């Protein structure tokens, strides 16, 4: 049902295509890249784009094209895992808050409010500073930062679905709370979750790039897009290719997720039920 509607939404399809491209590139990286992304080649320091170096080379002579290609892996890894982390915890917390109400709800939601009161990037930076600069810590930090958004959405959905009579019917048949939540309530909360998840994937890519740019993300020499940009900082004006290509990669990926997310939001709009 969703696919049929999606197939009519041009922008959504473009978004989907872009994401698919990113996934493909990430998976096939070893076959697409022309060089080893970590291979230093001092002779070709800051080489401009050419047949040998499609996107040119950075200050260490590393092929930017290959680095950007491999960077896709990092971006997708971080964004997908952090959103998965946030969704899992967000669903558990939000469902508990929405279904049980009372003390559980108050405690959980106030904690969520507390986390949300920090600007996302600052909180991520803080967490990274504590945990140390490793890729998995980026996932944890971002995941943690995003949990409240999901928890809120899930709680809202659960509250509204809980009122529906089919939930009462299940209770009247003697079903347990857990079964009701998983079988009846959560499947009906999926729509806003999907929309939030796609949007968050975009944020995560940007956040990871920002963290890396600040030196708090994937530890160098990992070719995360943010790192590539960061390395190119001092060369921006004269050797524009060093910043344009990673920047484009980020832009394209974020655009893809946003387009898909917008399309999904329109399609899954409850008014169309």
């Amino acid at each position, binding site marked *: 049902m969703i696919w049929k509607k999606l197939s009519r939404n041009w922008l959504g399809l473009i978004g989907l295509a872009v994401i698919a491209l990113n996934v493909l590139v990430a998976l096939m990286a070893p076959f697409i890249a022309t060089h080893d992304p970590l291979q230093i080649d001092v002779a070709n320091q800051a080489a401009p784009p050419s047949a040998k170096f499609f996107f040119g080379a950075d200050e260490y002579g590393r092929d930017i094209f290959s680095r950007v290609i491999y960077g896709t892996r990092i971006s997708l890894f971080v964004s997908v895992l952090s959103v998965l982390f946030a969704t899992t915890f967000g669903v558990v917390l939000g469902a508990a808050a929405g279904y049980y109400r009372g003390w559980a709800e108050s405690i959980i939601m106030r904690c969520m409010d507390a986390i949300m009161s920090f600007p996302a990037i600052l909180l991520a930076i803080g967490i990274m500073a504590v945990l140390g600069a490793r890729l998995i810590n980026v996932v944890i930090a971002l995941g943690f930062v995003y949990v409240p958004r999901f928890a809120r959405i899930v709680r809202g959905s659960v509250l509204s679905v809980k*009122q*529906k009579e*089919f939930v*009462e019917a299940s209770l009247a048949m*003697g079903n347990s709370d857990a079964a009701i939540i998983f079988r009846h309530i959560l499947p009906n909360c999926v729509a806003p979750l999907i929309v939030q998840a796609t949007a968050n994937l975009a944020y995560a890519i940007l956040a990871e790039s920002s963290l890396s740019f600040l030196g708090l993300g994937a530890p160098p020499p990992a070719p995360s897009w943010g790192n590539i940009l960061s390395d190119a900082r001092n060369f921006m004006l004269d050797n524009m290719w060093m910043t344009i290509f990673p920047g484009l990669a980020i832009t394209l990926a974020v655009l893809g997720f946003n387009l898909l997310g917008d399309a999904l939001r329109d399609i899954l709009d409850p008014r169309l*039920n």
Partner: protein
Amino acid sequence: MPPLVRVENLTKHFPVGRGFLARSDEVVQAVEEVSFELNPGETLSLVGESGCGKTTTGRLLLRLIEPTRGRIWFKDREITSLGRQAMRPLRPLMQIVFQDPHSSLNPRLTVKDIIGEGLRLHRRLSPAERKERIQEVMAKVGLRPEHYDRYPHEFSGGQRQRIGVARAIILNPELIVADEPLSALDVSIQAQVINLLERLRDELGLSYLFISHDLSVVEHLSDRIAVMYLGRILELAGRDQLYDRPLHPYTRALFSAVPLPRVGRTKQRIILQGDVPNPLRPPSGCGFHPRCGQVRPVCRETAPALAQVETGRWLACHFPLA
């Protein structure tokens, strides 16, 4: 033969003013000291206007809401405070059919999953046995076999109500609480569903607690009727008794307010003044007194108790109609 269901002084107060440090003493007296019996094979209807407590009473009976006070017996066993595990085996015997055909079915589940939930929870059947039983029940309610794998949104309102009924009867219940099952349906579909409910009652030996505001349907279906107002039962009587000779002024006003598809009805219409009162601030004494045509001082002071006035007939009024 003992009654199937008995409730005594059933009361439900909903607190008003939520929040962390809810200090409010205010409550909504949704249901107040309701007592009645429902016999096997009988249809007892609860009638009244919005806020009278009939829907809440139905839910209290099934322990979907917890009573503030009062006691409930099902098949001679007190179920007022039974825990969840203890209630579980009783649940298939006391089922509910809802008003809204749109929110009473899970849009993500197919008809077979919706109807078969009871089987899943309470019986160990092979998939083939399960399918057979579900289709058997579907046929009973007038659904066709090809509807088995469809989703609720593919059905009309009347058909969805049938699915709801099938879900309720799959494990051979003895009691069904029907909460305004017809209100959301067109007139011609209502007739179909009423006939279905009656047929099932005869075939399966069901007892109904039928909740409705539609007095014509209630007259058609019921054996006994309880008229509710502001959480209390004002009058409880057999159908013929009640419709031929209502004793409570509210009952009489209610009957006369019902528009009938008949022309030239002598308009001895009793038009009640005032509005249905706010359950947060119920009137003193008899809840109906502000709108009663024959109110006297005692009505403002004391609420009349529900007392038996004839065999099988109960009334809560200081000055019943002659």
